[in-house]
């Protein structure tokens, strides 16, 4: 039996005529109200939280998105934008009595501009399709979430998504030049522009990563990069997770910036091994995937350096991908790891906290200890190079482990904050971690962020109940504020 958490988030006022009005502006085939079909939209990738919306709108253009939002604004209806629904923090979780606005029909690639190194696309275009469209020019779109075959660029902008290669290339926010946005009052505006120089403050930068709470993206201009001349990839095995963590720290400290440094622990390797033609050593405690890319001479020299560092740190075996096919196998295993974990455990939670890169070994040790104590298995497969953990907390709903696993999962995220890091590196706060926000930020910090929200959406209709703790979600007193460890250490001050 599966127990779902039904999160109560209700729109403020529900008029009577709005579904008809919505159907009138979008056409009846663009509005879903049939309860059976609505269930498709009840959750995102965080399936433990489910809410059936009152309606789903499927606009085809910016004008139609604006019209749908306009109906919401007039009737005081909450709305939630939705891309592919692969989000892992409940960001696209509907609001009861509110509507979901799906961007799936806005999926045109409007323009690939190899001269200016950019592309203009609609929000429903998948991340990978941008790179596919740019490939004939020798270009690609750099941020590469593991979900890139399905997740949309609109969702990437909303979450400021990362990926394995963000270590060298940066995150979504570093690759978006402009966005056309429908604001909560139904007006359309453009944030950003053609150039890195724009007078006024950086509204686009603040919008990216705002988790759908400041407006709906209807068009995105992204930067494209030239494909690197050379790519080299290795898998280095280690006898302990701590040794692998120390190797990552040593690579970073040596001033080498690999394109990617990913770690899989033994449990993750077992999961991958069970499902694909695995290139990973079945019984190693941990493996690092290190990829370098760039000009050939630079890559050759640094690739040798990385191998030497791994050996110095006690690597038990280094496997260098001989060709593109072997490299693809390495990445296939890595990118399929989440899905593969489903085969060794009926249920799991994913966390995505971040720690300073000098503390990787320490945090992995503490997670293992916490997992032991809770009697729950935790698999680790993550973006080690930028300190972004993805502990997969494995449990069985049927065996009643849900609450224990959820508690452990939250504790891990909060441990990252305690170690001077963050609750989330790329998946977002969403509905999942909103109640943990007071662990990381004080009341004034959150109140100041809300000033931005109020400037964009004074009526609070745009994806309410996400990111920020609310009494409804977290109880009257959302988790006590404890001084941030950096504060205790005198590194940061709060007055």
């Amino acid at each position, binding site marked *: 039996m599966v127990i779902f958490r039904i999160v109560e988030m209700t729109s403020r006022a529900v008029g009577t005529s709005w579904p008809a009005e919505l159907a009138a502006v979008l056409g009846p085939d663009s509005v879903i109200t049939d309860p059976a079909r609505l269930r498709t939209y009840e959750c995102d990738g965080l399936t433990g939280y489910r809410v059936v919306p009152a309606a789903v709108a499927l606009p085809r253009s910016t004008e139609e998105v604006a019209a749908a939002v306009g109906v919401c604004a007039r009737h005081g209806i909450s709305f939630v934008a939705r891309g592919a629904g692969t989000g892992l923090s409940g960001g696209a979780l509907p609001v009861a009595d509110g509507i979901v606005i799906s961007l799936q029909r806005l999926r045109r690639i409007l323009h690939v501009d190899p001269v200016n*190194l950019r592309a203009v696309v609609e929000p429903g275009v998948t991340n990978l399709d941008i790179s596919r469209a740019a490939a004939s020019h020798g270009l690609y779109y750099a941020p590469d979430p593991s979900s890139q075959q399905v997740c949309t660029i609109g969702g990437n902008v909303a979450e400021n998504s990362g990926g394995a290669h963000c270590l060298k290339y940066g995150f979504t926010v570093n690759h978006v030049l402009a966005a056309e946005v429908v604001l909560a009052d139904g007006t359309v*505006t453009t*944030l950003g522009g053609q150039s890195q120089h724009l007078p006024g*403050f950086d509204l686009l930068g603040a919008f990216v990563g705002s988790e759908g709470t400041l407006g709906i993206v209807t068009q995105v201009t992204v930067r494209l990069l030239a494909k690197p001349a050379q790519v080299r990839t290795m898998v280095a095995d280690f006898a302990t997770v701590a040794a692998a963590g120390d190797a990552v720290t040593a690579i970073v400290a040596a001033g080498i910036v690999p394109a990617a440094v990913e770690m899989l622990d033994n449990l993750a390797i077992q999961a991958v091994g069970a499902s694909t033609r695995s290139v990973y050593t079945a019984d190693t405690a941990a493996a690092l995937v290190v990829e370098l890319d760039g000009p050939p001479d630079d890559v050759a020299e640094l690739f040798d350096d990385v191998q030497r560092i791994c050996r110095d740190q006690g690597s038990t075996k280094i496997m260098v991908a001989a060709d593109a096919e072997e490299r693809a196998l390495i990445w296939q295993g890595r990118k399929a790891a989440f899905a593969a974990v489903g085969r060794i455990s009926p249920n799991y939670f994913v966390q995505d906290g971040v720690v300073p890169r000098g503390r990787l070994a320490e945090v992995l040790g503490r997670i293992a200890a916490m997992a032991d104590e809770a009697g729950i298995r935790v698999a680790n497969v993550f973006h080690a190079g930028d300190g972004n953990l993805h502990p997969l907390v494995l449990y069985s709903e049927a065996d009643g482990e849900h609450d224990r696993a959820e508690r452990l999962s939250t504790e891990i995220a909060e441990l990252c904050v305690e170690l001077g890091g963050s609750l989330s590196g790329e998946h977002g706060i969403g509905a999942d971690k909103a109640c943990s926000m007071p662990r990381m930020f004080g009341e*004034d910090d*959150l109140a100041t962020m809300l000033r931005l929200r109020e400037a964009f959406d004074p009526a609070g209709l745009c994806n309410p109940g996400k990111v920020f703790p609310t009494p409804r979600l977290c109880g009257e007193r959302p988790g006590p504020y404890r001084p941030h460890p950096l504060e205790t250490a005198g590194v940061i001050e709060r007055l």
Partner: protein
Amino acid sequence: MSAIVTTYRPADLAELRDALTESARAGQRLAVAGTGTAQWGGLVDADAVVDTTAMTGLISYNPTDMTVAVRAGTRLADLQEVLAEHRQWVALDPARATAEGGTVGGIVATADAGPSRHQFGGSRDSVIGMTVVLADGTVARSGGHVIKNVAGYDLAKLFHGCLGTLGVVAEVVLRVHPRPAATATLAVACPAREAFTLGGRLIAESLEPAAVEWTCTRPRGPGLAQRAEAAREQRDGTLLVRFDGTTNGVADRLRRARALAGEHAAEGTPEHWQKAGRLAVGAPGDTVLRLGTAPDQVAQLVMDVDRLAATHAVDAAMTSTLFAGVHTVRLRDAPAAAHAAVVESLRMAHSAATVCRWAPDLRNELAPWGDPPPAVSLLRAVKRRFDPDDRLCPGRFAPWF
């Protein structure tokens, strides 16, 4: 500007908070100044000034984590010196940092950046955390000390380019990068159009340049129009391409780039970059304008600048970060009215223009800003939420807000 009667010179966050609380009680309108080098945008009409230059020094620096936290009044150049001891740097090189001692907070607030923005973006891309004090004394922190972090809104982005109008930046956390083992510059004498094409080729060949800048010092003195014409036909202007990496890698890429660039290519020197930097900063008496365009508009912009400089008998020089679409135009000599005419015409064609340095009397001839960006109503709405009484740097963004 009304007479400034009060100067606040806080040394840390607590004193800054107290200064803002006190000034709020007194209802003072505040100007904010770092080294006081930037005059970007409109003239501020204030009763008191917050001078951040005593808020200096590192708060934390752990080279292994590759992040550093500093007080906002720290000079970027001083910070770079400390980082250099560990073979690291903040990937920001606005000319103002070395020429005029620009502070970290000031550089963030002006969104200033230099040639390295080609690879690393601007300060928005290097800042990972920030503590600010709002007009009412509220202390707010966002971001953190790790390079990857999506928890909460990124308020640091909002303060990027705010010119002190949203709050005072107190502390900044930056990501740092390793200093490359080697670096080299290719210098090619060529006009803008060729520079853009060649730069594009070097990128397409995956030579991964760290900076692609085109600079040009226009001829000056009498007979300007004819000489500008002649200069355009000659190979005026210089493309500067910097390669960072390993010793062998950089040597190899420089060699291949030279081969692609042809007969006008040579190895560039630090002096090349210093010249571009001096141009971007300007000197007292100059007007300096920063413009944004789509990258491929550079040749058109150069033609416009040429034509306007000739028409109004102004000495115009220019440096462009080609693929970021960022151009800095320096106007020299000629009366303020001539500078104003050039700027007005450029604004008409390219609205994203900021005057960073004002020639004497230019403010009498020219509005602080041109046409507002499409999202101006959002800029206003944010301003109203952060500083409802319009006490911080009033006039900076006049007439937009």
